[in-house]
């Protein structure tokens, strides 16, 4: 499919979105809630662009992360109208999270340093990345949105029920502002629960059947270090990214499928990260290496 972005001719595979097409051709569109391993969501609206369908007169403002690329589509990402909208959105974000470095930096890049609105101090921008990672990638659905409107927040069911959380830390890793700090606390909770401590990488589907002998002190665990260094990010995200890219390279729009922890072992086969990982119990190590 051929379209024009900022006057540049671009080809994109059928079924891709405008954002994907733009990024593939090196045109940057800011987006906060978009993630390559996740379904487009359209929460932050920072990726707004002007789009004109072939044969149409009107230029519409659309969210490029959700807008399908079509033949002959004319896209502009840098008009005054768009810049103005974007600055306004950034101002709103800045008013909500004035102390989140990520938001400040993003806003500053577009020349927004001060918001004219009354300020909150909530680092969570409700982008939904953590919620979506938990349901689409981890398959645990341990956290979700609660309430509505100005009260909307990310919460576990009934505010206190963490039982579905496997302490994988994917939400912490994906959060752009650092508002979510679940991982460690939940690991502590799992520790106290007693019983058989199953390795969280088993719960994530990376290891066949490992029992944690470190009492969930993952920072001391060799498996944890290894998987994290190998992938350079959270191993679950790395895996989801690579499978999303594979699918995208193949055909049609990517579809991140939720993979339940229990089913994970079948996926481990092809995954490079799991190779060479110990099959039996994780042995206690003295201290974290290096």
């Amino acid at each position, binding site marked *: 499919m051929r379209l024009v972005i900022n006057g540049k001719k671009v080809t994109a595979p059928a079924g891709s979105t405008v954002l994907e097409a733009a990024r593939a051709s090196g045109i940057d569109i800011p987006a906060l809630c978009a993630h390559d391993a996740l379904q487009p969501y359209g929460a932050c609206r920072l990726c707004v662009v002007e789009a004109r369908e072939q044969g149409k007169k009107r230029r519409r403002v659309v969210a490029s992360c959700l807008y399908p690329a079509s033949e002959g589509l004319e896209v502009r990402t840098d008009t005054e109208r768009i810049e103005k909208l974007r600055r306004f959105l950034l101002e709103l974000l800045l008013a909500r999270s004035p102390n989140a470095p990520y938001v400040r930096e993003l806003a500053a890049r577009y020349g927004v340093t001060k918001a004219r609105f009354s300020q909150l101090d909530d680092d969570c921008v409700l982008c939904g990345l953590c919620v979506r990672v*938990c349901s689409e990638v981890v398959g645990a659905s341990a956290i979700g949105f609660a309430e509505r409107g100005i009260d909307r927040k990310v919460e576990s069911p009934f505010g206190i029920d963490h039982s579905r959380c496997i302490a994988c830390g994917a939400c912490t890793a994906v959060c752009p502002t650092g508002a979510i700090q679940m991982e460690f606390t939940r690991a502590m909770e799992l520790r106290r629960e007693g019983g058989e401590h199953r390795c969280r990488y088993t719960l994530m589907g990376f290891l066949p059947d490992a029992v944690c002998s470190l009492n969930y002190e993952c920072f001391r665990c060799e498996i944890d270090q290894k998987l994290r260094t190998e992938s350079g990010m959270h191993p679950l995200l790395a895996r989801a990214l690579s499978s999303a890219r594979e699918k995208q390279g193949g055909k049609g729009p990517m579809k991140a499928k939720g993979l339940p922890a229990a089913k994970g072992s079948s996926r481990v086969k092809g995954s490079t990260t799991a190779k060479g990982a110990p099959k039996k119990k994780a042995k206690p190590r003295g201290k974290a290496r290096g």
Partner: protein
Amino acid sequence: MSRNGAPNAIVAALRKERAGAGARAPGEVSEPQKVQRILERHGRKASQIIAILQDLQASYHYLPEPELRFVSRELGIPLTRLYAIATFYKAFRLTPRGRHEIALCMGTACHVRGAERVKDAIERELGVKAGGTTADRRYSFETVRCLGCCGQAPVMTVDDELVSRLDHLTVGKALEKYK
């Protein structure tokens, strides 16, 4: 947001508090058949979840946690999703309600004929603020906008009955017959 895992003692205490006096332990559904019947009525379809929750609330006056967990298990909908729905819509309640629901009209006509005083009187009588439920779960009290019978102002409904021409001196007595 940063509601990170409260210590277990606190969690247990919260559970107890939420379960209320003499209520069931969390996780235990009192009448599974009843919930099953509701599910059957809607073809056990996840897409019918709003209707299912409405029926559930119609029979319990609120959405009890164990029943929500049960529905989540039966239909394979994550509990977070149900919680999101239940907190999103104002019509759903997660806290227990009384056997009798009092809705006092605060519309314009009722207002000029002393609804505010009636409200104070009811609050005094029941010992709860508007929006609350008495400790014995006998009454829930809330205020509404116009009930549509301004000629009889000030009015309230108790369950489905209309009680009209209220005044702050006698409203307490009027409530007594609802056991």
